[in-house]
């Protein structure tokens, strides 16, 4: 290496040292022990020594590929696991003939809950502050809510 090519900045020096260390050409820090760079070089060597970078042998690669293929084949033959929510909304936990009734019952129940929740808003009052957000004329919100709810139920229970 000529003087012209010799690294000068700490960045350059550490990079050049790392290149040599990874090639196995250097086993000891190259900088003076008082340098900041010296401890960085030590870290590079420590990292390199503790994490061997040897490639997998061909036989190991083939064994791993065989295990991967076996696992893929096994997964293909197994039914896919569904998440809790997917199972809940697919209603597969209930016999198919009872599903429409269940959906209807859930719909009615939800409608009742919504109606009860909005009940004070639908009662006319002499006070100017009670139920102003949802006056009897504003039942559109409730109807809209119910429509959205039924749409959501229909979406979740659709056949995929």
């Amino acid at each position, binding site marked *: 290496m000529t003087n012209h090519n010799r690294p000068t900045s700490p*960045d350059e020096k550490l*990079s050049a040292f790392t290149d040599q260390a990874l090639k196995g050409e250097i086993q000891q820090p190259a900088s003076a022990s008082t340098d900041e760079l010296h401890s960085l070089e030590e870290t590079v060597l420590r*990292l390199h020594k*503790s*994490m061997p*970078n040897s*490639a997998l042998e061909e036989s190991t690669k083939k064994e791993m*590929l065989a295990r991967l293929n076996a696992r*893929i084949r096994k997964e293909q033959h197994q039914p896919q696991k569904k998440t809790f929510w997917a199972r809940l909304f697919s209603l597969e936990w209930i016999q198919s003939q009872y599903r429409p009734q269940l959906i209807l019952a859930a719909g009615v129940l939800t409608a009742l809950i919504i109606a009860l929740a909005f009940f004070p808003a639908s009662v006319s009052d002499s006070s100017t502050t009670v139920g102003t957000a949802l006056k009897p004329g504003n039942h559109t919100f409730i109807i809209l809510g119910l429509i959205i709810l039924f749409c959501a139920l229909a979406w979740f229970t659709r056949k995929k």
Partner: protein
Amino acid sequence: MDTDSTTIPQETSDETLIQQFKSGNQEAFNLLYQRYINNVYKRVRYVVPESEVEDVTQEVFIAALKSLHSFRGDAQFGTWLRTLTNHKVAEFYRKRSRKQEPRIAPLEDAFGYLEGSTSRMMEERIYIQKALSQLPENYQEVILLRFAEALQFNEIAELTHQNIEATKSLFRRAIAALRNQLDQ
């Protein structure tokens, strides 16, 4: 899927292999596996306990197999696979923390793994993995690219869209941060 990749020439490009796989040629995936297994395995080995390295590596390739059909080729396959590897490593630690297992294997795990590795070496590896895992992502990445994947600094610069001086500077700061972690 057969384990022998004999009918496709070894020098076939990644893009061609991906196209062939998308057309139903499973053998093309085997060749991609053979081509990239070392990089994935080495990267995983730097950040995951030794006993889990093969499992996580296999998870990466299973995920690749499942999503390769939607790979559009915006990035190189190697880059895409590297991102997938990082996701799988993150997922591994998410699952582990859900089970309330320590992020890095306890030191007792250091004994008994890997033929030819002394327990002292395994212990050191665990310390280094722990220190690495504490580093910011860009520091981890530059160290993994240089050490685990053995990329040259100019290749790292190209990959990370930086100039070489910035890459070397990042590397020095990453090593300094790692040293500080190890000293703690």
